[in-house]
């Protein structure tokens, strides 16, 4: 009921102020209008008239459902949009998708408020205030595309002419698979190594575990409807990532057939419907995981068809006892006894209970229940346990449980992604001149591959260290950045300790932001370019997995765009290429001309053709019957466009058993694969693996480096001064931090359990709040050693005592009139990232978000 919120009192006052009539005029109007309609006040229209005006706005014109794709999170669902006269009116799931079908999570509807957001940039702009800073109004003025692109091209040519192309940087945020045009090809042909993605602030550490066990650097899909036990770790599939629509659709059934347990410091949406909630201390997931592994072995619950068995069938896994490896005949795995000897043998539930603060009896019960359900027992690794400073081994430990119970690549277990047949774009090599080749040889600005940043995405230095790029820029190490383009990213808000990015961006002499809204990052830009909205105005595609399928889902321009937007990944690079060509550097444009329309063989002649041909080129194997390789079959491009999505063949279970890309070809408990890359990295730096681990803040030494094990969390702040551990997580209605300018986001904020509409709350357990004198609704300040924020307190039992839980998503001081309190000046709410230090899981290069810092809370 609307009277609950404080703001309604204002509405009531508004109404009563209109109620300006005397008793006589009241009676006069009452008799004048038949049927009893009464007009109230001079500024209030008589009801009849108001209604007449309302219905004059036109009858229902016929609408059409058009295929689209949602990137509100990385579930990347296929959708349909109801378009009436070029206007997007509503959204639903695309029934043609075998991944999500008709199901839609709640946040897709907010896309309507995003695409018609009045605070969207409608034209290119340039900065007129030469000073850059948090408190410096850029004083943007509108300019033409011609001027904007010309200026950008001039700056790039300046670098080329001075052999400084390595001082060009491209920052990638929200992408589609058209990304390589702008992110890779353009950066290389200009001649820079500095294409920096956002991946490390997403969940790269979540891929570390699956890679160093089964050689899969990617997100998994989970066969929940055929599982008998689902054990989730810091994952909230009913609210946040991944494939929320699908999991929301089937969870009611999964509950019937599976026991659901969730390790999570706060009572999440998924925990609310679980059988067991394991509210462990933040940062102790690794301890819980190895204790569960210990129980699985001592209780004889490992899946013999996958792991193997003792030669004589006698279970010799006894707590505390070292084992002879030769007694065990391993099947599709490598190193189970080695792992037991190195880590697991002493890791009893009682040991883990002390560390996690969970009852030993619960740990044992969950472990036994999980094991008894083998092989249909999923250990679901979310970002929580691993996007931490020492998260890499927790990532391995949690995922390794799937190996023990044989759920890997199995029915009712965890799967990789199905095969799909999109093609890469033409290679850039022939278009890289000597300047470009020389420029590309420089080292990257994010320091990946240095001793202290192994970033082991399949190889040393293989992964990005996004948040550290700020340090590179600040210290001009390895070199300064002179010209930078960022697209659909907002590192000055989305990265921990964002004030570093404020300083770094202020240092870059020429910064371009391709964005829909003027965000915190934009505040430091010299040129803003208005971007299309991915769901309604762009050509592109993305892929997603779920329900045993992979889909490739299309983005298409399906509405009349309001502003002068251009597509980030294709149209803008083409237009820049044209300008570069006019200035004597034609290599980029020549390269883009190779992206021919597969149907006509024609080269693109303008940016609109380029955007379309690039998409047709990349997806040709999916829609061209002559190139068919598998999955859905189409008659041609138009047929594919109409459906909006291609589905793969069903998942081929158990094909990867003893056929993995690991060093041993097996599922590795003792990771020879990790040993190999760690040794390579150590060798590169003339040192030992032990030294690498020490530099990277890890405690393990010797052989422990190659097995999943518990690492004590690295949490900043002294416990006396900062009594609470900060628990960060994603709001259900977050569209990757871009929905805070939607009124519906705030109006429905209490869809996050424990939260309050139109408030940004820090949730604290009532037992903790009482001694501090904090009550519901109090304005509070949260402070960590890194920074502070102001928000509202919400007393809630779903919070683990000793922690304070707060959603990420609010605290914008730019972006728009709703997201901020005063645009460009005062934030609405507070941003978690202001509390979190710039810490890393250096082994994966990931930014640490969880179990990173202690905080204190005070009334203000």
């Amino acid at each position, binding site marked *: 009921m*609307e009277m609950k919120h404080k703001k309604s009192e204002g*509405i009531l006052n*508004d*109404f009563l102020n209109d109620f300006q009539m005397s008793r006589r005029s009241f009676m006069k109007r009452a008799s004048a209008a038949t*049927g*009893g309609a009464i007009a*109230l006040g001079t500024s209030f*229209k008589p*009801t009849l008239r*108001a*209604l007449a005006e*309302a*219905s004059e706005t*036109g009858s*229902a*014109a016929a609408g059409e459902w058009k295929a689209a794709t949602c990137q509100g999170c990385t579930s990347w669902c296929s959708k349909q949009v109801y378009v009436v006269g070029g*206007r997007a*009116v*509503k959204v*639903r*799931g695309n029934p043609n998708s075998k991944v999500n079908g008709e199901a839609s*999570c*709640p946040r897709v*509807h907010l896309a309507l*408020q995003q695409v*018609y*957001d*009045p*605070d*969207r*940039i*409608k034209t290119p*702009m340039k900065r007129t205030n030469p000073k850059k800073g948090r408190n410096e109004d850029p004083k943007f003025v*509108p300019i033409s595309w011609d001027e904007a692109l010309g200026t950008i091209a001039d700056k790039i040519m300046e670098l080329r002419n001075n052999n400084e192309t390595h001082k060009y940087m491209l920052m990638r945020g929200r992408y589609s698979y058209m990304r390589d045009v702008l992110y890779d090809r353009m950066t290389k042909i200009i001649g820079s190594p500095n294409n920096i993605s956002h991946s490390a602030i997403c969940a790269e550490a979540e891929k570390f575990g699956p890679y160093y066990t089964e050689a899969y650097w990617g997100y998994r899909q989970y066969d929940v409807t055929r599982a008998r036990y689902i054990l989730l770790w810091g994952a909230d599939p*009913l609210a946040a990532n991944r494939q929320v*629509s699908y999991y*929301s659709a089937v969870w*009611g059934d999964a*509950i019937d057939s599976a026991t659901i347990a969730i390790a999570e410091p706060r*009572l999440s949406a998924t925990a*609310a*419907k679980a*059988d*067991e909630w394991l*509210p462990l201390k933040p940062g102790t997931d690794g301890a819980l995981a190895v204790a569960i592994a210990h129980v699985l072995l001592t209780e004889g619950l490992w899946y013999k068809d996958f792991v193997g068995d003792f030669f004589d069938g006698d279970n010799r896994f006894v707590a505390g006892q070292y084992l002879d490896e030769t007694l065990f005949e391993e099947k599709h795995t490598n190193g189970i006894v080695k792992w037991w000897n190195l880590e697991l043998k002493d890791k009893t539930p009682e040991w883990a209970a002390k560390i996690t603060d969970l009852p030993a009896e619960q740990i044992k019960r969950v472990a036994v229940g999980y094991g008894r359900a083998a092989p249909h027992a999923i250990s679901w690794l979310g970002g929580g346990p691993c996007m931490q400073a020492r998260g890499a081994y927790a990532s391995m430990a949690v995922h390794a449980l799937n190996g023990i119970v044989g759920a890997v690549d199995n029915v009712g277990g965890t799967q990789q992604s199905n095969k799909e047949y999109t093609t890469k774009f033409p290679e850039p090599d022939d278009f890289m001149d000597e300047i470009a080749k020389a420029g590309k040889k420089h080292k990257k600005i994010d320091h990946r591959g240095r001793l202290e940043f192994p970033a082991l995405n399949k190889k040393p230095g293989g992964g990005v260290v996004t948040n550290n790029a700020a340090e590179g820029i600040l210290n001009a190490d390895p070199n300064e950045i002179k010209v930078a383009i960022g697209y659909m990213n907002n590192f000055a808000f989305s990265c921990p300790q964002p004030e570093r990015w404020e300083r770094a961006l202020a240092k870059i002499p020429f910064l371009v932001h391709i964005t829909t809204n*003027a965000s915190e990052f934009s505040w430091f830009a010299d040129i*803003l370019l208005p971007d299309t909205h991915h769901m309604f105005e762009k050509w592109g595609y993305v892929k997603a997995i779920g329900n045993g399928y992979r889909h490739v889902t299309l983005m298409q321009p399906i509405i009349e765009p*309001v502003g002068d937007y251009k597509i980030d990944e294709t149209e803008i690079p083409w237009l820049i290429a044209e300008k570069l060509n006019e200035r004597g550097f034609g290599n980029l444009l020549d390269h883009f001309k190779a992206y021919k329309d597969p149907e006509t063989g024609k080269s693109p002649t303008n940016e609109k053709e380029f955007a379309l041909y690039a998409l047709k080129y990349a997806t040709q194997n999916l829609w061209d019957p002559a190139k068919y390789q598998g999955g859905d079959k189409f008659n041609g491009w138009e047929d594919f466009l109409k459906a909006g999505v291609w589905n793969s063949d069903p998942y081929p279970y158990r094909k990867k058993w003893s056929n993995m890309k690991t060093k041993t070809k097996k599922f590795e408990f003792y990771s020879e694969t990790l040993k190999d890359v760690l040794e390579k990295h150590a060798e590169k730096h003339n040192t030992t693996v032990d030294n690498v681990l020490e530099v990277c803040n890890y405690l393990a030494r010797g052989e422990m480096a190659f097995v999943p094990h518990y690492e004590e969390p690295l949490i900043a702040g002294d416990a006396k001064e900062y009594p609470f551990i900060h628990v960060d997580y994603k709001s259900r209605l977050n569209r990757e931090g871009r929905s805070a300018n939607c*009124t*519906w986001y705030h*109006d429905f904020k209490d*869809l996050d*359990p*424990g939260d309050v509409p139109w408030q940004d709350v820090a949730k604290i357990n009532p*037992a903790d709040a009482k001694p501090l004198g904090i009550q519901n609704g109090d304005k509070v300040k949260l402070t960590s050693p890194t920074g502070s924020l102001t928000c509202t307190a919400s007393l*809630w*039992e*779903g*919070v683990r005592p000793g922690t304070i839980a707060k959603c990420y998503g609010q605290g914008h001081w730019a972006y*728009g009139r709703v997201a901020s309190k005063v645009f460009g000046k005062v934030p609405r709410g507070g941003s978690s990232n202001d509390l979190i230090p710039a810490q890393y899981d250096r082994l994966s290069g990931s930014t640490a978000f969880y179990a990173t810092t202690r905080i204190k809370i005070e009334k203000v």
Partner: protein
Amino acid sequence: MPKYAMVIDLQRCVGCGACSIACRNENNVPDGIYWSNKITETSGTFPNVRFHYLPTLCNHCSDAPCVTGCPTKAMYKLDNGITMHDPKKCIGCRYCQYNCPYEVIYFNWQEPHKFWRDPKPVIEGGTSSPKEMAQKVNNGNATPYSNPDRAKTLPENRPKGVVEKCTFCDHRLKAGEIPFCVEACPADARVFGDLDKPDSRVNWLLGKYKPYRLKERLGTEPNVYYIRSFNPAHYQRTKGGI
């Protein structure tokens, strides 16, 4: 004549609120008004604590106090059981709001969608204003994404001074479509149907499970039924003890 009802399966419901946001979209409901809503409850003490979610909407009561108490018959029953509202007859007295025990009726205290009449841009010349956006996209008709289908049986946007509430998407039913909240629910937790059809899915579910309705003791005879439990968790068997 059909007798429409809804069955909500709490086990399938994941508490996502897609129903409420989709409804807001379909029916052009102003901010602060929730035709589709929820009752949430956190029960227990850490660590024995649970969060429960109950989707709510107008119950389209067979014996509706809002209808009985309306002085102008603006609130009335359709033949198919829907409790409908006619803004042309509404005098904004809000007796219906007072009489409804479920708090599902809302009053338009102001002209709806005030946000979209603001003429100020955040960056002069560089961004639109809400007014400009609404004008460019939809000729100034309330919101840019306003759904014209709603106008079949109600004003597309109700004016200040009248109440509004869920109408079981009567405008969609006319076109042979189920209510939008039912379609939008990803979990298929909402089941719509005709109680007068013996083999309808709603009748089948009402027989299969023991349903309950809100505040049944008041005798309003709601037509929104709830089955199963939001959190059917297992527990370790026990006889308790002294």
